């Protein structure tokens, strides 16, 4: 797995722009500021990152999907179960506290927000990298934080001890709700896209 420092810098900028766009779109839809608390892109050891996630004993609901196109990758949007109910109220535009139990509407909300965030970051990549990217339909799952995260990294972790991961944390303004957004790009296809971008810039 090889990614140069220069590529990492370019990627960091593209991801930050993408997440900024995603957070604006997210905020507009729920009519509340979704504040980015953290955006971090780095090569991480699978045991270390999952050790951190396994310390989080919360029950979560998540939407996972793939980005397919000039480069591929996986995206995960994850929110604690109680937070998903707040998100549902915000999304539907009803007073907070109206949704009391997790049901198909909560699932639909998480699926939709996952879709919106994925499309937003996909569009950003498409415009900055000149790549065509399409998100697959999201799969929604309820489980422990560590278990959901394990599913995200499993395939890459089978063959690599380290994975390239973007971690973003949002806080929904005026609530205690934090939600998480992870991007796990396929490193080979990403490097090809970055090389292509670099060449076209040099030619220009």
């Amino acid at each position: 797995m090889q990614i140069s420092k220069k590529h990492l810098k370019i990627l960091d900028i593209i991801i930050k722009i993408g997440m900024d766009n995603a957070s604006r779109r997210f905020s507009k839809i729920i009519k509340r500021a979704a504040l980015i608390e953290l955006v971090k892109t780095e090569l991480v050891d699978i045991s270390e990152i999952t050790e951190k996630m396994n310390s989080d004993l919360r029950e979560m609901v998540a939407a996972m999907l793939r980005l397919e196109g000039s480069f591929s990758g996986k995206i995960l949007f994850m929110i604690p179960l109680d937070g998903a109910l707040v998100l549902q109220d915000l999304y539907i535009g009803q007073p907070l506290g109206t949704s009391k139990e997790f049901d198909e509407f909560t699932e639909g909300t998480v699926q939709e927000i996952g879709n919106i965030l994925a499309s937003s970051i996909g569009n950003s990549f498409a415009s900055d990298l000149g790549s065509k990217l399409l998100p697959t339909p999201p799969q929604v799952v309820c489980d422990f934080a560590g278990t959901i995260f394990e599913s995200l990294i499993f395939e890459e972790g089978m063959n690599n001890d380290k994975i390239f991961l973007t971690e973003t944390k949002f806080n929904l303004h005026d609530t205690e709700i934090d939600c998480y957004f992870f991007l796990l790009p396929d490193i080979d296809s990403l490097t090809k896209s970055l090389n292509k971008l670099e060449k076209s810039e040099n030619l220009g």
Partner: protein
Amino acid sequence: MILNNNGNIVTVGVGDLKIAKSPKVIKTSLGSCVGVVLYDSVQKIGGILHLMLPSSNERKGKPSKYADTGIPLLLDLMLNQAKSRKNVLTAKIFGGAKMFNVSNELFDIGKTNIAETQRLLEHFSIKITASRVGGTKGHQITLDTETGIVQSRIFGEPAKEY
């Protein structure tokens, strides 16, 4: 791999293994991965291996990711580092669920992980005294090294002790 960690809680990540002595507790979360718990009731030392795949198949990754290389490694730590006697060691296994996944290649890898873990423990003559495996949801397990009791929690179900 550490014998001690900050505080009394030792957390194990995917493809890793850790051992600890009483009064520490060791915990991990499992999906299709299998958690192998070895316990020495005499010294009150326990270890958890969080394995991802049944066989390393000459992959170059960490040996603790695979059952065929990880189980011997955990056993070696218990016997040679913790100085446990083999005849007092017992095993408990958890996890191996059939998880949702975006890849078809990984169809029910949990089941293969369970079968290989059972085969290897039998091969090394380590008795499995308890197991809670399979299903479609995640497991959280916590080993209390003082008692050897493992608290197992499956998503959506009450916690049970093994």
